[in-house]
C-alpha cells in the first residue's frame, strides 16, 4: 500500500468518529426528550398529589376539580375494569389464533392471516372508536339496556384493539420454541394437541406472558376510542352496563379548558398512569428476561 492510502485511512477514521458522534447525539436526544417529559409531568403533578393528600387523591370517590375536589379512585377502578374486561375477552382469542397460526395453519394460510392480523394494528384508534359508537354502543343499548356507553362496550372494543399486539408477540414466542421439542414429543407418541398444550405452550410461557402484559399496556393506554364509548361518568361501576372513566380519558377530556389546580390534577392523573404502566412494563421485561 502507498502512503496516500494511509492518509486516506486517517481521514476515514476521523470521519468515522464524527459519524459516531452524530449518531450518539441522535440516540441521546430521544432519551433526553423522554427524560424531559418525565421531569415535566412529575414536576407539575406530584406537588398537586401532595397538596391534595395521597390517600384523598388516590382513594377519593368524588371528582369535581372546578370546586376543588380531586379524587381519582373511580378512574383507577374504571381503568382496571376496562383493561381486565378487554383481557378476558381478547387474550383467549389472541392466544388461540397465535397457536393456530404457529402450530396448525398451512404455510399458505399463515402467509395471508399473519399480515392481516397485523394490519389491525394499523387502523387508527379513532376509527375503532367510531365503530364502537355506531355499532357496539347501540347493540349493547338495544340488547342489554342502559345507555350503551359502558364498561362492557369499552372492553369489547379494546379486546379487538389488543388482538394484533398479543397475537403477533405470542406467535413469535411460539415460533421460537425449537422444532426438536415438537419432533421429540411427536416421536414419543403424543398427539399434535398434546404436543402443543404439554410441550410448546409451556416452553413459550414467558413470551406468552409478555404478550399479555404488553396487550394490557395497550388497553390501559388507549384514550380516544375509550372516550367515545365508555360514557366517561366519574363513578365506580358496579355493573358492566354502567359508564366509567379511565385515567387516560380523564386527561384528554378535561385538558382543553383546565387551568390552575385542575390542570395540575390532570398532570397528577398522568403521574399515576405513568407509575402503573411503568410497573407493568417492568414486570414484562422481568418475565421476558427470566426465560
Amino acid at each position: 500500500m502507498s502512503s496516500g492510502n494511509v492518509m486516506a485511512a486517517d481521514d476515514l477514521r476521523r470521519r468515522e468518529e464524527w459519524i459516531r458522534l452524530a449518531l450518539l447525539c441522535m440516540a441521546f436526544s430521544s432519551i433526553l426528550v423522554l427524560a424531559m417529559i418525565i421531569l415535566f409531568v412529575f414536576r407539575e403533578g406530584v406537588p398537586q398529589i401532595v397538596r391534595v393528600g395521597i390517600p384523598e387523591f388516590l382513594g377519593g370517590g368524588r371528582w369535581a376539580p372546578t370546586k376543588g375536589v380531586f379524587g381519582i379512585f373511580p378512574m383507577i377502578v374504571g381503568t382496571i375494569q376496562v383493561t381486565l374486561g378487554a383481557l378476558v375477552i381478547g387474550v383467549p382469542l389472541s392466544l388461540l389464533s397465535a397457536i393456530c397460526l404457529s402450530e396448525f395453519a398451512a404455510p399458505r394460510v399463515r402467509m395471508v392471516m399473519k399480515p392481516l392480523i397485523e394490519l389491525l394494528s394499523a387502523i387508527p384508534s379513532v376509527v375503532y372508536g367510531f365503530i364502537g359508537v355506531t355499532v357496539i354502543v347501540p347493540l349493547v343499548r338495544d340488547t342489554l339496556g342502559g345507555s350503551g356507553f359502558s364498561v362492557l362496550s369499552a372492553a369489547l372494543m379494546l379486546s379487538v384493539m389488543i388482538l394484533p399486539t398479543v397475537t403477533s408477540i405470542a406467535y413469535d414466542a411460539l415460533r421460537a420454541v425449537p422444532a426438536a421439542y415438537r419432533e421429540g414429543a411427536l416421536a414419543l407418541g403424543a398427539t399434535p394437541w398434546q404436543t402443543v398444550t404439554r410441550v410448546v405452550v409451556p416452553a413459550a410461557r414467558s413470551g406468552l406472558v409478555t404478550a399479555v402484559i404488553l396487550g394490557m399496556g395497550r388497553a390501559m393506554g388507549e384514550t380516544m376510542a375509550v372516550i367515545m364509548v365508555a360514557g366517561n361518568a366519574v363513578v365506580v361501576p358496579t355493573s358492566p352496563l354502567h359508564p366509567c372513566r379511565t385515567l387516560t380519558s380523564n386527561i384528554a377530556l378535561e385538558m382543553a379548558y383546565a387551568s390552575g389546580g385542575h390542570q395540575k390534577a390532570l398532570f397528577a392523573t398522568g403521574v399515576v398512569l405513568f407509575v402503573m404502566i411503568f410497573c407493568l412494563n417492568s414486570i414484562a421485561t422481568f418475565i421476558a428476561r427470566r426465560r
Partner: protein
Amino acid sequence: MYAMGVRYRSLRPVRFFARLGIAILVLFGLVGLSGCRGKGRVLIVAGSTSVQPVMEKIAEAFRKVKPGLRVDIEGGGSSAGIMAVRAKTAALGMSSRELKQNDPNEAQLWRQMLALDAIAIIVHPENTVASLSLAQVRDLFAGKIKTWKEVGGRDRPVHVLVREEGSGTRSAFEELVMKDGKHETPVDDYALVQDSSGGVREVVCNDRDAIGFASLGALNDSVRAVSVEGVTPTFESVREGKYRLVRPFYLIGVEPPAGDAADLTRFSLGSEAAVIMQKEGLVGVFR
C-alpha cells in the same frame, strides 16, 4: 485492511464523556434557542374561562390586523379577571357574569357587553316531551327524575349527558340551571360526559332517551331544543330577553380602554368578530 472495529474501542472513556457532554450541551442549546423569541408589545386579557375560547379566536383574527402585537388570553375565572385589571396585570378582563353592583371593587369598573351565551336543553326529535320547567330540568340532570314518564313522556329511562368539568358551557349550565339561589344541586354522577357540543349532539340524536345541553349556536336539525318555562330558545327570544338560560359575556377595564386595548375592543365588536361569535354559538349584541 483497516479494522474499523478497533477504532470503536480505542475512544477512551474521558474523551467519550467529554463528547457526550458537548452533545448534551448542544442539544440543550437548541432547545433553549427555540424557546426564545423576539419580545414585542404584549396585550394581556385575563378572566372567565367561558369567554376565553371565543376571545382566543378573536385574538387570532386580530393578529392579522395588527401583526406586531402579541395578545395573550389567560383564564382563571371572572373574578380573577376583575382582580387582574384592578392590579393592572391585565389590560382587559373577561367576565361571564354581571358585575356585583353592591361590591365597591366591581361597581365602578368599565364594562362592554360582547355577547349573550344561551344554553339550550336538547332531546331526541322523537321525544314527546316538548316543554319543561326549570325545576324539572334541574331534577332530570340531578338524577332525581329517572324516567321520562315523570315529566309527561314515555315510560323510558332518562339518559343524562353533560359536558366535562372546566368547560364553559358546563359552568354556565351549572350556574343557570343547577343553582337555585345560593344552593347548587350537583349533577348526577352517572351522567355521561362528552367533551364537545358536537359530541353531546351526536349522542342525543342517536339515543331517544337522552337529554343534554349545548350552546344555542351549536344546535342543528338532528336534535330538538325543549322550551324551558314555556319559552323556546331562538336567537330572537334570547335577544328579546324572554329565554332565561342566558348569561352575558363582558369585557372589563378599570376605565375605558385606550391604545391597543381599545383597538381589540373595537375589533371584538366588529363584523368579523360577530361571525366568530356566531360560530361559537353566541348571540352577538350588535345585530
